[in-house]
């Protein structure tokens, strides 16, 4: 894979009145041509600062940024072939939709007729045709978001930067818009760096995800890899929900790993983890990787201590005999009915979906 965008030991230290804050700590990263890479993490993890350094809004304290082999680390934003869709859009309130979208072309001294053509084209692409003369203040949030998108697409940037572009939209519109963004990004094949704190959004939209915490990269991988094989407890916990059960490795082969839970139950996980025999590990159990059965049919027995209906899912908290607690989600709760608190249940694990981490 040829790296279009390359971050090398990228570091940003903010020195304010208090003690210096390391916002981004030696981040190395590659974004391939046409790839959509998402920076995902909790607020303050450095994802937005990383993006802003790529956009030219912050000067790195250390490290370099290369775009297509060219070093751009210290170029001001107006000299970089990057374009950003900002969280708050940053639309020019005193200009119409047309003028907003045409702005970048005017700066580039594109001939008037071509500006008109290209703006129409891109407004059509984002579905805003007919709204050219509106001021952005008179548009809905979703429409404003699309003006922001059109405004950067029209200048055909080499890299698109998205800074939490959907966080000002309501939940339903957010899903629609992210599909829209993804479709256009794929169609045009624009290399994109996308920042979000919403893991579902990241999973849905990305080719690859970079999970960040405290300025450092925790893991880089496809959405599946990140969800199924998290590199550490932080990633496991941040992406989706996870239970951690203590276990000991009791068997290994080239294709599987066997662990023994504190209750004595042995689980054969069909994946070769790199642990030695006898090592204590944590079993990562996703809430949906467990089936609830009558007590007699389960591999393991527990008691329901909390039961909640959350739409299509039933959410249970199960107290195991080992005193460990397991959060479990079951689909189709409406038909099956909710098990009341105090009900004894049997559990069975989906072995394929279990993951091991160091204790």
């Amino acid at each position, binding site marked *: 894979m040829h790296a279009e965008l390359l971050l090398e030991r990228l570091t940003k230290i903010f020195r304010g009145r208090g003690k210096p804050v390391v916002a981004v700590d030696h981040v190395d990263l590659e974004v391939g041509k046409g790839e959509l890479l998402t920076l995902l993490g909790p607020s303050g993890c450095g994802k937005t600062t990383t993006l802003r350094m790529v956009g030219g809004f912050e000067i790195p304290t250390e490290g370099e940024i290369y775009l297509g082999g060219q070093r751009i680390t210290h170029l001001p934003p107006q*000299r970089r072939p990057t374009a950003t869709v900002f969280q708050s859009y940053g639309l020019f309130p005193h200009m119409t939709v047309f003028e907003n979208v045409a*702005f970048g072309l005017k700066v580039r001294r594109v001939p008037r007729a071509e500006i008109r053509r290209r703006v129409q084209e891109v407004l059509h692409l984002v579905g805003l045709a007919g709204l050219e003369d509106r001021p952005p203040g008179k548009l809905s949030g979703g429409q404003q978001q699309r003006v922001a998108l059109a405004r950067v697409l029209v200048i055909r940037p080499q890299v698109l930067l998205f800074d939490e572009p959907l966080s000002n939209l309501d939940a339903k519109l957010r899903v629609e818009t992210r599909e829209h963004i993804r479709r256009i990004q794929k169609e045009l094949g624009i290399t994109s760096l996308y920042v979000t704190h919403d893991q579902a959004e990241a999973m849905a939209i990305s080719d690859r995800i970079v999970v960040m915490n405290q300025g450092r990269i925790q893991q880089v991988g496809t959405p599946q890899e990140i969800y199924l094989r998290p590199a550490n407890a932080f990633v496991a916990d941040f992406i989706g929900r996870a239970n951690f059960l203590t276990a000991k490795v009791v068997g290994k082969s080239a294709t599987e790993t066997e662990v023994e839970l504190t209750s004595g139950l042995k689980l054969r996980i069909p994946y070769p983890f790199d642990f030695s025999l006898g090592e204590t590990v944590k079993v990562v159990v996703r809430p949906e990787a467990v089936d609830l059965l009558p007590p007699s049919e389960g591999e393991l027995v527990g008691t329901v201590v909390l039961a909640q209906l959350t739409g299509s899912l039933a959410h249970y908290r199960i107290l195991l005999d080992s005193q460990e607690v397991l959060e479990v989600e079951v689909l189709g709760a409406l038909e099956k009915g909710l098990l009341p608190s105090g009900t004894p249940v049997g559990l069975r694990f989906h072995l394929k979906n279990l993951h091991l981490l160091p204790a």
Partner: protein
Amino acid sequence: MRTVAKGHRVLGRTVKGARVTRPLFSLSRSPFGRLVHDPVLLLVILSVFALIGLFVVYPLVRVFAASLFHRGVFNPRYFLYLFEGRPYLLRPFLNSITVGVLVAVIGTMVGFLYAYAITRTDIPGKSLFRWIATFPIISPPFLLALSAILLLGENGLITRWLFARFGIRWSVYGLPGLVLTETLAYFPLAFLTLEGVLSGIDPALEESAMDLGASKLRTFLRVTLPLATPGLAASFLLLFIRSLEDFGNPVVIQGRYPVLTVQAYLAITGMYNLPLGATLAIILLVPSVLAFILLQFWVGRRSFITVTGRPSTAGLHTTESYVKWPLFAGLVILSGIVLLLYGMVFYGAFTELWGVNHAFTLDNFRYVFSTGSSYLVNTLKLAGVATPLGGFLGIVIAYLVTRKNFPGRRALDFLSMLNFAVPGIIVGMGYVFAFNTPPIQLTGTAAIIVLVFVFQRMPVAIRDGVAMLQQIDPVIDEAASDLGAGFFRTFRRITLPLVAPALMAGMAYMFSACVTSISAVIMVVSAKWQLVTVALLHEVDNADLSQAAAYGVVIVLVVLGTIFFMDFLVRRVLGRWRHAR
């Protein structure tokens, strides 16, 4: 240059990196390097530094030099005389401090009562009270001294009545006059500061205190007052600075109670004793700058800013009549005095000869519009030139210090705000010293007056500019540069149109401030370029109080006219702009 093939560690795995070129030595690591890529911005920053250096810092340096050197030889003799306690140096210093402290304490107290009554009670006539309180801010402050003399001077109405009725010989000159006029002139600043502070205190805090069983008095003493303390301190310092640097009131009313500003002025213009004048100026500068630094410290560090924040919606209204009506009465008396004093100027302007013949006449205005018309025209012309220049420079500097990061940003911030702390008389003196001889010889020209206007009003213009920019999401600027616009285009196409309405309103006030300004320009006016405020003072000097009053009325009308006109304009422009959003 060398070529580096490098591997990158990504989560423990080494992946093959792209071939990248990297210079051995990188200048661009520093923020200077950033500016190399943005030459327009670099040029603007350098020009602003040059302007500030030449027209703010250099004149001050010359005042320092004049106080320390005599005929090119180091000779700080007047400082030595001060430490010996020679009264012509020590007395003005002690007097200035005394007046400053009294005005700051009384003015802050009055301002607090005013602010408390308006933010925390439901007294009637709030908007009228607020309107009256802004009067001393927009009018020339020495007008209060003038009307104090009309009432309480040697020939004042009250003075004569006291003598005729009780045989008491008393006039207001000296300390009482200074404290009276300066308190009335500057309490509105305390009021505005504290109104912001009080309306920023979340009423929920006071409500919870009472909810927990505290009485109203206890709530006031233990919750409201402590929360307002940083604001009170800021207001005290602000008034102290203003009083110290006041020239217009003391020059009229100081009598035998000399203060530093006036003595410094007299040393230069009356005695041609430059070292003495400069030394008095430096003695004045020290407490002003100390108070300014303290103010910055307070405003910067304490929660003052957050408390000032946004005025919350519903305040807590003390409606107990034993609190409300005494406050109301106090406000009525206070604004009554303000109105009486301004009214006195109007009355005086239409009398034959104050203290002798109070018959109605329009002669004073005929005089102002014949003899004084050139002064008026000069003032309007020069203020008209200075205002757009100052407004523009103010917004540019505000933009640089709030939106851009460059080496020396903090220094620029500090230096450009310096003239807020430096008394006007020192600014004027510095211009006289600095631009009296080649290479830059400006004395006697219109340019020097315009420059004084611009750089004396600069801090206010910058502060206004910062406030305007805070209304605009910085992302809008970032978006513009992201789309390829450089500094100049972003500023012209994005920032300026967005701040235009506020900028115009700010310039109306700047224009008014230039028209009413006296302390700095009095040092640089010339026979050819005489200003209307200076003419007014000459009339007071000649004891032509009625003609002085007529000048005062004309100045007030010009100021009100400007503000109303600009308000009208802004409403239309702003209205259209809002509509467009």
